[in-house]
């Protein structure tokens, strides 16, 4: 299991999801991915994308205008 970061700041929906999707394709099951976003829509979209594609949305942290979303890669 390894941890990875993705910078999706300044990207608007659905680009943060697309970048997350493309990054997850390169990772292994169990890996953790932290996605940093500025579009608040990502807070709905990334968890929804995780639910329908078998990944786990762990939690998020808001820091100023930035949102860090943590995802665990599924099988």
């Amino acid at each position, binding site marked *: 299991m390894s941890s990875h970061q993705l910078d999706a700041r300044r990207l*608007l*929906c*659905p680009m943060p999801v697309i970048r997350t999707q493309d990054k997850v394709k390169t990772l292994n099951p169990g890996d953790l991915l932290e996605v940093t976003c500025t579009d*608040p829509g990502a*807070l709905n*979209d990334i968890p*929804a994308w995780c639910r329908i594609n078998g990944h786990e949305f762990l939690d998020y942290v808001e820091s100023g*205008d930035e949102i860090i979303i943590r995802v665990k890669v599924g099988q």
Partner: protein
Amino acid sequence: MTQQRKAVALISGGLDSLLAAKVMLEQGIHVEGINFFTGFCVEGHTHAIRKKDKAKPKRNNALWSAEQLGIKLHIVDVVEDYKDVLVNPKHGYGANMNPCLDCKGFMVKKALEWIEENDFDFIITGEVIGQRPMSQRKDTMPVVARESGANDILLRPLCAKLLPETKPEREGWVDREKLLDFSGRTRKPQMALAEQFGFKEYATPAGGCCFLTDKTYSDRLVDLWKGRNDKQYELDDVMLLKVGRHIRPKPHFKMIVGREEGENKFMEGYRKQFLHMRTTSCTGPLVLVDGDLSAEDELLAAQITARFSKGRNEDEVTVEITDKSGLAKMLSIKPLNESDFPKEWHI
């Protein structure tokens, strides 16, 4: 044991594609969704930018549809490939800069590439004969099937009974009798079917889900191309056309004036790509300037910037002008009078 057939459904986030996918799921087909991001998709961008819209839900309807259906959704970035569709549409544009027929053919072609790579059997769309004046007519639907290369593996479940039999029907993968015969612009059959399937909530975007069907947006795009004397664009251009007031005082430069705090904040991300202006002696918007300015142009642009500030009625307002390298200077000027601001400058 009968092999379970696999279809990819073009999911826009609207009701028709939701229903088309559901009709196939009801027939035991394995369905996965695909959604293409061209850059012009309406999905939430402006809501995400504007502060006054902060409270509005920022749901991506394609993801939401997939979740209702219980299917996977693949969102594909086609921004680069889409440029040729928009710049050189073989079948021309609709009422605005919407190349609907070419766009549909392009998306089905992309879906065809996807099913070939992923070993799926056919493609479904939520198209309905007569629903849209350009891409969804009885005479243009075969054009999409033919020019995309999908031919008879493109199935439109909502109006299939009105169209020639496709391979999935012929081979018995799906039961043609259980497909539908919707046509025309009425939404009643779709709403009845939604109720039958238990879908109580669904997106009903007026004019489709594409900014290119919007007149103001299309006017701004045409102006961008004309101003640059080049029909190329980048994703940042596409985004900025959705934001602020667009003002072209002279053919060689354009100003983008933030209308509120959320837009100003979004535009701040572009300060290194554009010369920008802001009043310092009073509150005012962030203004991005696209084009090269002479000293005279700079003065005019500063006066316009001041005109959109709280100091518009003052005798003198100070404007900070910052170039792309971050070098700033101050200019004290009188805001432009309303009588000196022709409304034709607004794009």
